[in-house]
């Protein structure tokens, strides 16, 4: 079922949690709400679920007004970060809960409940745990049970609030691939909240990047990563070097590293900021035109990549090289090298809030 969010605003006292949000989620899509903590993503999810009410605006489910429906009437499945399983009920009873509380007329018979619950448990591959209690399960198992419980009522929309946030890295990776497969099998609309950009980029059909109660960009994972609409998106999705520049053409003929923490200050009309991803900078041993001189400070091999910290005048620049490239270059501390960007994205200095830069700069 599609979800339309129209002009939603929400404040908590003086704090603006959501500022006039508009978002359409088409049927069958898996959408990630991505942003730093406090950006309003969880509030938006809770408003969709009916656990929080918006100060202004509308929520439509499948085109029908749902703004004032109670959570229990919305037919949404909700998965919480900390599972929120019923501790005194067995795994089976947890999953059966949604069926048992149905009004008598709609309630399936005991044998149907049994069949449906066991189907769901085998869907999440935990049918052998039916008689256990939540305290006897690992975090990953609990979250899968929570998902089975949410799916038991055949929701039209599945909402997940940082579903893998409390799990360790390996389990998290497994579960998010599994969630992707599950979503494709179930043919429902899913929205999940995360602050982990890797998770959002890997799992979602579409990523909604949020900051300070506003939507910064909506797009496919590839779009938001390789074509960020705003400096915030650039910085939030992956590492980035920011250069305070006076640009000629599109190359940094005369690029000066941003001198102070507060970008956009002291700028003349032509001032702008150049954003370059660490893996979009090439390091050269010989000077070439348009390249920027720098000195190697540290070389860290990290797994498949080699991270190099360089100093350009007094500023640090981060560059990521492949291991092969480092083999060729043989970079060592104290060497003088030249930097050449492969891809630069330029934003006028005025559009960049200094605060945002400081918060999320690398």
């Amino acid at each position: 079922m599609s979800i339309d969010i129209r002009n939603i605003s929400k404040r908590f006292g003086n704090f603006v949690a959501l500022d006039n949000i508009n978002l359409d989620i088409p049927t069958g899509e898996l959408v990630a709400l991505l942003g730093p903590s406090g950006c309003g993503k969880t509030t938006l999810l809770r408003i969709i679920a009916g656990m929080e009410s918006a100060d202004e605006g509308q929520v439509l489910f499948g085109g029908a007004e749902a703004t004032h429906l109670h959570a229990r009437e919305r037919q949404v499945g909700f998965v919480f970060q900390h599972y929120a399983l019923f501790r005194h009920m067995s795994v089976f009873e947890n999953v059966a809960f949604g069926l048992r509380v149905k009004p008598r007329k709609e309630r399936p018979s005991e044998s149907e409940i049994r069949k449906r619950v066991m189907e769901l448990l085998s869907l999440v591959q935990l049918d052998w745990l039916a008689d256990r209690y939540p305290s006897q399960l690992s975090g990953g198992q609990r979250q899968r049970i929570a998902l089975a419980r949410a799916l038991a009522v055949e929701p039209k929309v599945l909402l997940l609030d940082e579903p893998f946030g409390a799990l360790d890295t390996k389990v998290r990776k497994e579960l998010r691939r599994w969630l992707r497969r599950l979503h494709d099998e179930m043919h429902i609309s899913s929205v999940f909240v995360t602050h982990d950009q890797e998770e959002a980029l890997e799992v979602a059909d579409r990523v909604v990047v949020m900051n300070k109660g506003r939507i910064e960009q909506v797009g496919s994972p590839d779009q938001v990563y390789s074509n960020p609409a705003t400096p915030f998106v650039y910085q939030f999705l992956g590492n980035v070097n920011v250069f305070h520049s006076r640009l000629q053409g599109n190359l940094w003929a005369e690029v000066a590293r941003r001198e102070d923490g507060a970008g956009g200050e002291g700028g003349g009309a032509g001032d702008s900021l150049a954003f370059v991803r660490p893996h979009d900078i090439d390091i050269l041993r010989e000077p070439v035109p348009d390249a920027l001189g720098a000195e190697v400070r540290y070389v860290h091999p990290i797994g498949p990549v080699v991270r190099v910290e360089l100093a350009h005048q007094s500023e640090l620049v981060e560059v990521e090289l492949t291991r092969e490239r480092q083999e060729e270059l043989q970079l060592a501390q104290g060497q003088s090298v030249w930097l050449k960007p492969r891809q630069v994205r330029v934003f006028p200095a005025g559009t960049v809030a200094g605060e945002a830069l400081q918060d999320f700069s690398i």
Partner: protein
Amino acid sequence: MSRSSSHSVLPGFGLSLGYTLVYLSLLVLIPLAGLLAKSASLTLADIWAIATGPRALASFRVTFGASFIAACLNGFFGLIVAWVLVRYDFWGKRFIDALVDLPFALPTAVAGITLATLYAETGVIGEWFAKAGIKIAYTPLGIVVALTFIGLPFVVRTLQPVLEDIEPEVEEAAATLGASRWQTFRRVLFPAVFPALLTGFTLAFSRAIGEYGSVIFIAGNMPLISEITPLLIISKLEQYDFVGATALASVMLVISFVMLLAINLLQWWASNRHRSVPVKDAAALGGAQ
């Protein structure tokens, strides 16, 4: 995994257990043993005769009956008070929270006299009940009032931390699954607080069985009607009937012990049934972790 292994991580097991045993012996076991030893001068038939006398039987009925009713009332209203104190923020909450402890601190005689005055037919509260034809003070109903008063903090204080422990998400989860408020309470919240409620009930109940000071002022103390067992024991002592008093005390001790044991077993069952691992699964679980 097991805590009873010979090398415990926590040192001082021998010392602290020894201390516990000595302490409990000095305060509980030796006095109780003395009581039983004293009653050993009687044959079982004698004890039976004393304990089944009409006055004794009536006093047992009053004591255990009124205590049970009072503990039930406390269980019900204590749950509401604890719920209000945990769930809602309102002006004067800290004051009400402090008020709950008052029955702990107030001398029971003061409580008894105050309650007797208020609930007497001429008292501020009692006169309203008197108009409806209900006498509270100087009847078994008065005993229930006094026992409810002294038992209240036990239930509230046992429930508060447990209610605070229930995450709001659990209720939200129930709501998104389609449960009504009542279904959420009955199926989710109540089972979660039930073991604690039982503990609070037990504490209030045991406290009420042993209560003396507040009851004698409000009970009227009419033999066969509103006389509690502790009072009957005192009156036997005043007549130098030490053997009769001891016999009654022993019988009360045994009944209390059996009842508390039963409630404790129930409590153990209530709090453990969702933790116990079926034996056949224990090995698999150990392996899975």
